[in-house]
């Protein structure tokens, strides 16, 4: 019988982190930005049915990069958590902070348990507040750490480069069209410095819109409305009145 090799805990963790990071890097990046009336999620996604962004609860949205089956599992877990909590207490008692903590614990336990392979996912949990100051955005990397973000955040393969691009250009109080334009610009940048075009039909866009009269603030932006917003952002003639009329 051979003696198993000794692997130091540091080395084991480093290997697992590298494994997870490589998995996440295979997928496309996505960005989450604050704008005047809420939070916008933008990503490149050729699929119409398999979403990267979704609604968790009234004011809470979810975005994920990485392995689909793993983040889908976490998403449904989050929906169940939120719905059960809202049913047990009250709808107001479901918060992004609580959800992010649960995700962090879940990812962290999986990451450090030798029996399980680490999840190759990176999540964003965002909650839109009554005012921009009340908005909350949490980024959750594969290892269960949790980062409280402001303004803009990017996750996925090319996240660092996109983040620094966004950090330089993102401003508070942007209109939706402006924020969308900035998001698309940031996603179009190649790691080697080049740029490529992302057609509108390959974009997945969703918002948490605080001005929406319904209790549930999550809304997907698709089709003609998306086209209009992209044009608007390009022409820099954004008017808030038109946005309101576009409600579907």
């Amino acid at each position: 019988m051979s003696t198993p090799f000794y692997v130091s805990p540091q080395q084991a963790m480093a290997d697992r982190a590298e494994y997870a990071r490589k998995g996440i890097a295979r997928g496309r990046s996505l960005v989450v930005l604050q704008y005047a009336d809420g939070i916008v999620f933008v990503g490149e996604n050729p699929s119409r049915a398999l979403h990267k962004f979704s609604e968790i609860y009234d004011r809470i949205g979810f975005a994920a990069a990485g392995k689909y089956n793993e983040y889908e599992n976490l998403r449904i877990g989050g929906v169940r958590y939120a719905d059960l909590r809202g049913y047990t207490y009250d709808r107001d008692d479901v918060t992004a902070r609580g959800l992010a903590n649960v995700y962090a614990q879940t990812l962290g336990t999986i990451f450090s348990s030798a029996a399980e392979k680490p999840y190759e996912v990176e999540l964003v949990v965002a909650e839109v507040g009554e005012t921009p100051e009340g908005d909350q955005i949490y980024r959750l990397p594969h290892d269960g750490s949790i980062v409280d973000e402001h303004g803009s955040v990017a996750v996925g393969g090319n996240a660092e480069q996109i983040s620094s691009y966004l950090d330089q250009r993102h401003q508070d109080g942007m209109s939706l069209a402006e924020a969308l334009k900035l998001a698309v610009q940031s996603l179009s940048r190649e790691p080697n410095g080049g740029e490529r075009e992302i057609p509108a039909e390959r974009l997945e866009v969703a918002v948490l819109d605080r001005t929406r009269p319904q209790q549930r603030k999550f809304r997907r932006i698709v089709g003609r409305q998306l086209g209009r917003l992209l044009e608007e952002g390009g022409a820099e003639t954004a008017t808030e009145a038109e946005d309101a009329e576009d409600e579907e």
Partner: protein
Amino acid sequence: MEANTRSTGRLPAAFLTPGSSSFMDFLSEHQPEMLPGKRQLPPIQGVIEAPHGTTIVAVTFPGGVVLAGDRRATMGNMIAQRDIEKVFPADEYSAVGIAGTAGLAVEMVKLFQLELEHFEKVEGTTLSLEGKANRLSTMIRSNLGMAMQGLAVVPLFAGFDVDRDKGRIFSYDVTGGRSEEQGYASTGSGSIFARGAMKKLYREDLTEEQATTLVIQALYDAADDDSATGGPDVARRIYPIVTVITEDGFRRLTDGESSDIARAILERRLEQPDGPRAALL
């Protein structure tokens, strides 16, 4: 297990297990005691006194459906509450009105709303109107034990069927038996009187305004003859809750809108206490 949903620990395995898109199914596996139908009933003698809600009416019109309810809750011969709400949105395109034991009914509506929302979030698409109606059936059936003790809940479900492009109404009995109603329907203690009124006033080509007026006429007639149903309360400014569901989704009439209709009806009834007359032949 239970502690995990309340503290901020790791999500329990049940949360991450692939399975049904139904919140009720999830709850029955994970925390069955939370489901109203799964509660253990102590032996009960006689009838339990609890506030009851009364009359709910619904009318379809080309392009949608109107669902309305009076505001009175009674306990025996006492008025328990004057401004109770018995008509609720179930989701964007449907609403449910509840007659019967108020406490259980409100709880059932809350769970029903959650069931539809949960399915929508998990699947990324909404249930069909039939699917929603069937789900409500299951919930009423699970309440049968309570119903046998006199704590029945009998809802009326109405919605806009986006696939068929029309408003539809479903009525239920205490055992969860479901039937689709054509044109108009009512439930609750004043429902026989309301139904009589609707039968005489209903036409297939009603406009939305006529349909909302019709339901308030019917509720007035129910309140006229059934002591458990409340009429429009002008002194306290409590008017029936009227909801309209069309292609554009669910809308509840503002207090101003329903008070305008109710006041116009009251005005007419001062001259004609029995309300509008239908032709004899």
